[in-house]
């Protein structure tokens, strides 16, 4: 059996799995009755909904008229962008705004678009100046500058 619409098939599996997890997790909270719903009632309902829509997607993925192949995931770009933001989150409380921005710019710029070192430096300095001006002086955000 071939999968015709790979995208919808994979998405369906993903959603149905999340639905199953939600239903199971909800069991650990009080479900309650329809008159007095416990904290688990609503999430369990959503979970059941996700299982239904997810299985529909799986079925559609198998029998869909228009074949659709999975797109490539650009892991490198994903790692760079998310890694840069992660580094920012780690650094901002430990060191300060300037270091965090510098790290963010350097990591995110080492991506596939060919950056010249001079440009990265210029972007970094400009963004630090802009951020300090807007967030520290303009909006008074309580964060250490460096």
């Amino acid at each position, binding site marked *: 059996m071939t999968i015709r619409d790979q995208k919808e098939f994979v998405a369906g599996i993903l959603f149905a799995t999340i639905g199953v997890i939600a239903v199971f997790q909800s069991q650990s909270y*009080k479900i309650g009755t329809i008159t007095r719903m416990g904290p688990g009632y609503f999430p369990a309902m959503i979970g059941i909904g996700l299982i239904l829509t997810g299985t529909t997607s799986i079925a*559609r993925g198998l029998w869909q008229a228009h074949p659709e192949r999975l797109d490539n995931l650009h892991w490198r770009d994903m790692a760079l*962008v998310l890694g840069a933001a992660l580094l920012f989150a780690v650094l901002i409380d430990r060191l300060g705004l300037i270091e965090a*921005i510098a790290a963010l710019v350097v990591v995110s710029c080492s*991506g*596939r678009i060919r950056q010249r070192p001079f440009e990265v430096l210029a*972007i970094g300095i400009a963004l630090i100046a802009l951020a300090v001006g807007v967030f520290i002086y303009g909006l008074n955000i309580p964060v250490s500058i460096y």
Partner: protein
Amino acid sequence: MIEHLSLGFSVALSPINLLYCLIGATLGTFVGILPGLSPVTAIAMLLPITFKIPAISSLIMLAGIYYGSHHAGATTAIMLNMPGEPSSVVICLDGHPMARNGRAGVALCTSALASFFAGCVAVIVVAWFSPPLATAALQFMAPEYSAAIVLALVAVSVLSGRSLAMTLSMALLGLLLGTVGTDINSGALRFTYGFPQLADGVEFVAVAVGFFAFAEIIAHLPTAEVEKIVDTKLTALIPTRADFAAAWKPALRGTLLGGALGILPGTGPLLSSFASYAMEKRLSRTPSRFGHGAIEGIAGPEAAGNAAALTHFIPMLTLGVPAGATMALMLGAMLIQGISPGPQVMTQHPDLFWGLIASMWIGNMMLLVLNLPLVGIWVRLLSIPYRFLYPTILVFCCIGVYSVNNSYFDVFVAVACGGVGYILRQLGCSPAPLVLGLVLGPILEENVRRSLILSRGDPSVFVSRPISLALLLIAIATIAAFSLPKLLQVRMAGPGEKAVTPE
């Protein structure tokens, strides 16, 4: 209405609000012209900043970004055959051929004037329709609210992607995310997995930034190296008498069509501009000219898009039920400012309500000035390479998300949402229903629970009340209509490509 509007103008004309209106309109123009930056991304990025300024100013600014970007999206469509916004995809069809025929200036001018005219009319529509709608909505009890929210989620899901099962899944996923945190009735912690930072729920701004900014950047990076070449020259701006004669009727029709369609949840500028183009082509005596630089193909859709962008606010302002992803973000901005959205906003915060409406008119004036004489500068902006742009977006997003609660944990949440959002995007899932679900989830849960307590556990309460029944029937009919494969194909046969999402 006059006294309300004069109150609105007195608010909107205060120097500080004029300034924020100008900032919003300018940023919106900027966003509309730069292809890698959508209005949702920009609003998600600037959402955190708005907490530090007064509620009315922040709403004026965010609204300015929204309609400003729709105004300006046409500029790149005409000059470069590259839509700045999804809603300007249609403008490419005739706008770019006009520019190649050496009539770029006329095309730009027509689109700006049509937009402005539509904006003026739509503001009056908003001012006219909102009070009676809000009065009617005051009768809404918990069951009606639940039904209205379900309808909004269904409508946005139906129009967000190729598969209804997938978009509904996204909406449900948003609802599920909305349950994270402390349960309002029992105080029990749900899905926090030991993180105390999640006790107040998932930070909405972090999710919005993750799905709309981070995921967008990752998806845009592989194709961003393509050079943008301006192959058209700017020429005389003023349309001839003949142009004017050909354009005014389509602009009027587009305004009416867009104004009406914009009120419906899920539609917005994208659908309205497509609908207007189809209508003009059908009404034209010479449909063969369409696609080769017909001025009607610019005036109609552009007016429809802008009118819809403004009337799109009506459900959010009068019911507290946003009609699309951008409106969900605006609703989030209101919530964080401590304003509980709903029909009472108009009576409890008349300055905010009418000030926002008046600012839309002022903003449209500003856009006319910004767009027409300064169009040369904006076109030059196109040469800003994406490699300068995306670090800037990233920096603003990260500081913004951090600054909401001074919490690095929220940045982690945004990173996680960015990763998940990118993967879902590559699978063809639009993030719009998810964000709507996240915003509306807690409101839906509260209203469903309240309805069932009032009815002593009888679920027929949702179908025994006429308004609630009607709303649910519309939702079911919408699902049924769009589940039929034939209709689905008609919908996808539009001139755009499959990647366009509403907003």
